[in-house]
């Protein structure tokens, strides 16, 4: 919300020159060799190079401030560090340098990992809700909404069947419905909109908008520029781990589309400084 007055804007997420580096074991020279593995366990630091540990610099010196009430899109080509940055904001990945400060606990939208295919949909609603930190009463209250929203029961009583018997679309819908049942201060969404059929997608976009109204700040990672346009008014463009552009959706998307559509067209403009507009 760039038009807000300066002193009413309350920051919810502050990233201060963040670097994120992944350490990948078992590459290069040391691969598969038992002595290299032992060496790696015994002399962690010194052996990193020798044992074939590779450093992947996924996010490089990224700084930004996100404010209450903003919905921010994260765009960039595959492997540019969007999801990594999101996980770091959620506090699930350590930063190498710099720091990320947040207001409350940002949560990633997603409970897939907590759910179990052998349990019924009903039990999974409870398990997923509890995993996200909801109380039993809260879940009981919202249970019917969750099931109705997922539309699982539209074609019969499926919620009492084990989740492994669901089609992949049904499973995805239930997962999204569970994940979206909770209100978050800072909500991080990683391409969750691409699940289910067209009708469900419309409903989930609707739900995201609702969540946004309750949430302080929403981050959305997506390759779907249309859903970014619909949901976000500010966009961060990451390319090879570097924050390439930060600004109103239309401006950044225009540059991004030029970049991805026709690389030779205006790379100059993307790299050149723009006149900053006071907000």
């Amino acid at each position, binding site marked *: 919300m760039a038009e807000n007055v300066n002193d009413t804007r309350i920051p919810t997420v502050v990233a201060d020159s963040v670097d994120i580096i992944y350490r990948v074991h078992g590459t290069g020279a040391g691969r598969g060799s038992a002595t290299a593995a032992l060496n790696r366990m015994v002399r962690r630091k010194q052996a990193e190079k020798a044992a074939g540990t590779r450093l992947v610099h996924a996010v490089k010196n990224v700084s930004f401030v996100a404010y209450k009430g903003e919905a921010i899109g994260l765009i960039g080509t595959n492997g540019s560090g969007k999801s990594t940055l999101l996980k770091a904001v959620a506090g*699930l*990945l350590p930063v190498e340098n710099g720091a*990320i400060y*947040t207001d409350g606990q940002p949560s990633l939208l*997603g409970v897939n990992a907590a759910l179990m295919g*052998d349990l019924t949909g009903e039990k999974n609603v*409870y398990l997923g809700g509890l995993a996200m930190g909801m109380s039993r009463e809260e879940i009981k209250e919202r249970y019917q909404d969750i099931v109705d929203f997922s539309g699982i029961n539209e074609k019969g009583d499926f919620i009492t069947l084990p989740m492994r018997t669901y089609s992949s679309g049904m499973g995805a819908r239930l997962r999204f419905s569970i994940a979206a049942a909770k209100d978050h201060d800072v909500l991080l969404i990683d391409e969750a909109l691409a699940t289910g059929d067209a009708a469900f997608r419309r409903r989930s976009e609707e739900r995201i908008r609702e969540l946004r109204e309750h949430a302080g700040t929403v981050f959305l990672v997506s390759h779907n520029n249309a859903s970014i346009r619909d949901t976000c008014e500010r966009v961060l463009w990451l390319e090879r781990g570097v924050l390439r552009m930060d600004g109103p959706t239309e401006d950044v998307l225009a540059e991004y589309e030029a970049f991805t559509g026709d690389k030779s067209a205006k790379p100059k403009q993307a790299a050149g400084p723009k006149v900053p507009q006071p907000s």
Partner: protein
Amino acid sequence: MTQVLHTPPPTPVTAEDDLAALAARYGLSVSGARPSLPEYVRQLWERRHFITAFATAKLTAQYAQAKLGQIWQVMTPLLNAAVYYFIFGVLLGTKRHVPDYIPFLVTGVFIWTFTQSSIMAGTRAISGNLGLVRALHFPRAALPISFAIQQLQQLLFSMAALVVILLCFGIPLSVSWLLAIPALALQFTFNTGVALVMARMGAKTPDIAQLMPFILRTWMYVSGVMWSITKLTKGDHLPHWVTIALETNPAAVYIDLMRYALIKSFHSSQLPPHVWAAATGWALVAGVGGFIYFWKAEETYGRG
């Protein structure tokens, strides 16, 4: 507020030169930092329903695909005991030296299995659930604790079978059976503590999970699961420290306590000296120590 942050960022909107100060002014906290120990305990308490629900879910999911379903909760430990009975009781003839051998053996096997599977599950608690750890926020100790609770629930099924076996072999019901409750509580605390320690080690070095079965099997054979430690330590053919080590071994302590509680022919003379003190001591050391050890690395779990 359009700005291209390719070159050193311009400073148009906020005090970007000092983001840390901005964060401090609005009271933002560092994301993913380790909470203090009391705060951690509080967070864990808030998640208690998740911990128990996760344990129960794992337990029910365990045999969901089997035709006989939950019957395996009781069948698995019984079959285990049957194998040990055949090998140690019949083939090696241990049963000649121990009165009420079948109750003796079955109690030993069930109580040992409780500790063994808690530790095994603890070892994989973090490394086997990375997806969960990387997707959701909760105190990570919830996982090993939840697995220990799952094993406790499993043990309660086994204990029900054990009661039937005891009665079938003419062991009378007695007041001393109530001692099983404090004994189990202490053992559960001990198991959880060790599971927490193993969870941290297993998270750092997943290879430990490959090594654990061998360590645990060795531990089982020295814990008097299928033979009587008192029979072995009688006389002085063993060095004193070996006797002490055999008797204070936590697994042996918990197994003997349970036998003492349940089996009439297992006299208090067969218990090692200061057995309740040893049981409580092990529970406290492992429980408190394991919890703190696990918490110390809280912020590192699930990270490559």
